[in-house]
């Protein structure tokens, strides 16, 4: 009799949005070993950024690394190239950029929560969160003209100004969403079946969070205060009311709560930004070609994103290196899978909010 069975998850599976393959070696549905294969989405963007596209176009190309955190990629690239070109942006541009980043974070977190609920068989919650998410999508569409790929940021500023109508819409929708998030926190904390499904499942301890290089909400749920927004001052996060949110146990339940509370914090930031917007130019003129190198760190919805740019004074960049949060979360993910049930695997996977198109580029 065979003792271990191998259960494949992917590369096409109903609980997966993107192609990634896990091979779970299981004993009686208990996972003993995990084999993973993440390279299905590799397209060769880093190479193309240095050979095919000019430095002004790269911003739009790196946005297509990942649709969920598109604005973060463009943002990190733009900040990097602005550092090389020595462009100083004004307060309004910074504020508009943070606004878009935080709106993106809200929609990404809500999607992750919905996906986790769906993967744990909670269809009612999935529909509820996806319904609420449309409020943010509306704001995004009103501001940038597209629902997912914003193409809002460009070198030297932003592409569009925010109109008074948009501002009004954003205020009403954010206030509505704030109430709905409160309601969601209540629903997530007081459900018998989600407690069975989420509490103490897929837990990452505080030490392991450091050992396995966890980032973003994953680390913060374990109590590790890792957040680029607090560490770097490249964008004025402290002015707009940023607050670090920490969990304790690092299980799915805590991750959900951290995400929900971060959404609340993001909503607060957006409201502060919208009420504190000043008049000003939205585009700074610049001249010259980039020459030099830069390192940029930025907090994506999933954790720290890192860009290394190297330019040699021509229209083409010499090197673009992207390090994405999911890439460094994979060892932690594998560690958590070991010892948990296969029945929990899809929910754990979704609660990590993995982004394979980020990882493989």
């Amino acid at each position, binding site marked *: 009799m065979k003792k271990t069975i191998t259960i494949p998850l992917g590369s096409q599976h109903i609980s997966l949005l993107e192609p990634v393959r896990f091979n779970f070696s299981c004993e009686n549905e208990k996972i003993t070993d995990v084999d993973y294969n993440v390279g299905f989405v590799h397209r060769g963007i880093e190479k193309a950024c240095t050979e095919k*596209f000019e430095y*002004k*176009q790269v911003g*739009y*190309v790196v946005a*297509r690394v990942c649709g969920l955190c598109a604005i973060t990629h463009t943002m990190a690239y733009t900040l990097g190239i602005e550092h090389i070109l020595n462009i100083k942006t004004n307060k309004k541009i910074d504020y508009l950029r943070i606004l878009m980043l935080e709106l993106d974070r809200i929609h990404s977190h809500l999607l992750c929560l919905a996906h986790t609920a769906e993967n744990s068989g909670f269809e*009612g*919650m999935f529909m*509820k969160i996806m*319904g609420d998410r*449309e409020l943010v999508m*509306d704001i995004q*569409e*009103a501001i*940038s*003209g*597209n629902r997912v*790929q914003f*193409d809002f940021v*460009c070198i030297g500023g932003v*592409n*569009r100004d925010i*109109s008074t*109508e948009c501002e009004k819409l954003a205020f009403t929708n954010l206030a509505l969403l704030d109430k709905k998030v409160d309601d969601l926190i*209540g*629903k997530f904390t*007081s*459900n*018998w*079946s989600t407690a069975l499904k989420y509490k103490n499942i897929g837990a990452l301890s505080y030490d392991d969070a450091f050992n396995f290089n966890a980032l973003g909400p994953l680390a913060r749920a374990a109590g590790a205060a890792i957040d680029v927004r607090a560490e770097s001052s490249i964008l004025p996060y402290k002015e707009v009311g940023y607050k670090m949110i920490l969990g304790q146990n690092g299980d799915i339940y805590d991750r959900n709560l951290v995400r929900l509370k971060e959404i609340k914090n993001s909503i607060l930031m957006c409201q502060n930004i919208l009420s504190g917007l000043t008049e000003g130019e939205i585009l700074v003129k610049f001249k010259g070609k980039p020459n030099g190198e830069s390192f940029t760190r930025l907090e994506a919805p999933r954790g720290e994103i890192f860009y290394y740019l190297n330019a040699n004074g021509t229209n083409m960049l010499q090197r673009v290196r992207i390090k994405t949060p999911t890439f460094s979360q994979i060892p932690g993910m594998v560690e958590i899978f070991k010892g948990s049930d296969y029945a929990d695997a899809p929910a754990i996977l979704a609660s990590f909010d993995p982004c394979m198109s980020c990882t493989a580029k």
Partner: protein
Amino acid sequence: MIKSIIESFSNLFAKSETINYPYEQIAKFKNYRGLIEYSADECIFCYKCEKVCPPDAIVFKPTKEKNRLYEYNPNLCIYCGECVRNCPKEDLALWQSEKKPKII
């Protein structure tokens, strides 16, 4: 669980959020980034849009006459609007309409 049950029950009598789309239109926001449109009469043939387009969706094909022929592939376009922003005669020669691209 009780909260969810109460909400599910009250939803039975609430109005549904669904937009009956193919039969009734969805209200779009202003400045929706739709199809790129072009007017040959106004174009000054600086080829800036061709140069700047990331996926090369806009191509000026060489012809026997003096001016080249504008060709645009909506299936290749990523609707970023970079061509429009770089056009010296924005809104006259090249503009981003609010039309949906056609499905084939």
